[in-house]
């Protein structure tokens, strides 16, 4: 009884839209925060320069992710890619900075 109701709720338009916005706004934010931090560490520039370059590009990254989230059909694919990429990047960042 409960399971079909549950799956119907997951299929509802309101849930799909909200979830997509959540992925775009919050997921995109976290993803771009991690990737620009990684960028700042990776670029072979002085510390201040790398930070300035990274923050200048952060809006670009965020916008691209946002648009991408709305252009892909499958929600599972969106969340999968976002989580996988964020996780691998933060792992890389942790290895480089020696946080582990």
């Amino acid at each position: 009884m409960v399971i079909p109701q549950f799956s119907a709720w997951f299929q509802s338009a309101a849930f799909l839209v909200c979830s997509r916005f959540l992925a775009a706004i919050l997921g995109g934010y976290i993803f771009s925060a991690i990737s620009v931090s990684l960028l700042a560490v990776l670029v072979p520039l002085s510390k201040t320069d790398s930070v300035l370059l990274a923050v200048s590009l952060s809006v670009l990254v965020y916008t691209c992710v946002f648009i991408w989230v709305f252009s892909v059909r499958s929600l599972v694919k969106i969340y999968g890619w976002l989580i996988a990429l964020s996780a691998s990047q933060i792992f890389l960042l942790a290895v480089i900075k020696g946080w582990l």
Partner: protein
Amino acid sequence: MKENFFRSMTWLHTWTGLLVCWLLFLIFFAGTLSFFRHEITLWAQPAAHDVQPQLNRVAAQRQQISTALEHLAMKAPEAETWWVGLPNERNHTMAVSYREKGDDGVRGKWQDNYMDPNSQSILAEYRDTKGGHFFYRLHFDLHYMDRTVARWIVSFASLFMLIGLISGVVIHKRIFKDMFQFRSAKGVRTWLDAHNLSSVLALPFHIMITYTGLVTLIFMLFPYPAMTQYEGGNRAFFADLNSARQHADATGKQVEMLPMKQLVDQFYTNWPNVDIKRVILDHPFDETAIVKFYANTGTQVQDEMPVWVYSAVTGELKTSANTDLSPSETLYDGMIALHTGRLALPGLRWLYFICGIAGCVMIASGAVMWAKRIRARMKSNEQPGFGLKLVEALNLATLMGLPVATTAFFYANRLLPNDLSNRADMEVHLFFVTWLCVTVFAIYRAGTKQWKQLAQLNVILWLLLPICNALTTQGNLISYLLEQQWILAGFDLLCILTAFGFFIQMNKLATQEKANVVGTFKLKERNT
């Protein structure tokens, strides 16, 4: 896949746009006005109207700095900081301000005074007003709320604007094909044309201003790169970036400073012919007293001013910053310079202003178009839903209410008595109260008739503004033109032009209203 992409982008464009359009209109409107923030401030300050510009501005600065610092040494030896803002092309007065010492962690209050650089006397009867700075603050700090919260909200809206712009370019495949098309008097079509035209004609500007707008707040939005690179986050990063920003606390040990004239002379022997924008002296008469000379960047695409820091006690050069920018700094700082437009000479400033107006038109026409489309789709006997009513009310309240509120702010500046306590805040309150009144009116009903009435109100208010100015101050439009006070004359002319714009709108709405009445009349006849 491709069709699906266009459909999802259309959906995204519509809903991101609609969600934040009223806030965006406020931001764009206030931001556009802040391109003229010093000009508005000048208008708001009749005591400064007659200050003549300096003939040899840069050469006169050396004398001005010494005079101002000596004045402050006499007047406020106990202050925390002295601030000397030198006259420039846009602002002919000289600011000689100081910040009082605060108690236990609370920073002291700024005491602002202004000097006529020609007579080197303090300008009396300065009225307490925010002038153009109100609009400047409004466009990213909003009002009546915590600054950080407001900035997050504004950033969120700006992000949606950027998304809206990009998705807009994607969905209008033919955007560049119909770029010059404007079909007037064709209902929704006309609004669509206005929307397309105003976005395409200033598309580089819109994208630039939105992106760089986000970059101005970027260290609040994305502190993470600085946090990964520096233990102390943003604070440590800025200390490393700009050594002149480092703030040493006063030790409290009183010492004699060098004579002000000697300090200034020393600076000028090292760097003659520099155009100075401001001079700041921290902790006067303390052993840590430092004096900072900030150079004017002029028309360079650079926002951070080059700065030289001297010890005010020994006179040695302690540090200098921003004299030579690295590529990354140039990128970041150039973006901020493009956003603030401080580099712009009058010609470019007007282009900025026109593009800003185009942005307002784009947002306004988008919002109106949504409501018109829904209305057009409705059957004649159908009642409008809550969403449509809300959008229509908000459209009327924002698009027509903001100009009304702006005039209220200007009238308050001229009509409130000078000795009123909290005068500057009263002006701002009046701005918002007026806006609230219009909103209440719009919630009551938001049809063509109400639009016409508000357009009429706008015509009257904007047209009376130059007259009110002429009655309450010494000058008027004719005297401004004769004495070549272009800024003040420009303000009056722009008011008249705005009134004329609303007049055209009023006439259009009147014919539309007539057509509607005839239309419903015919419909009723047919029904009976």
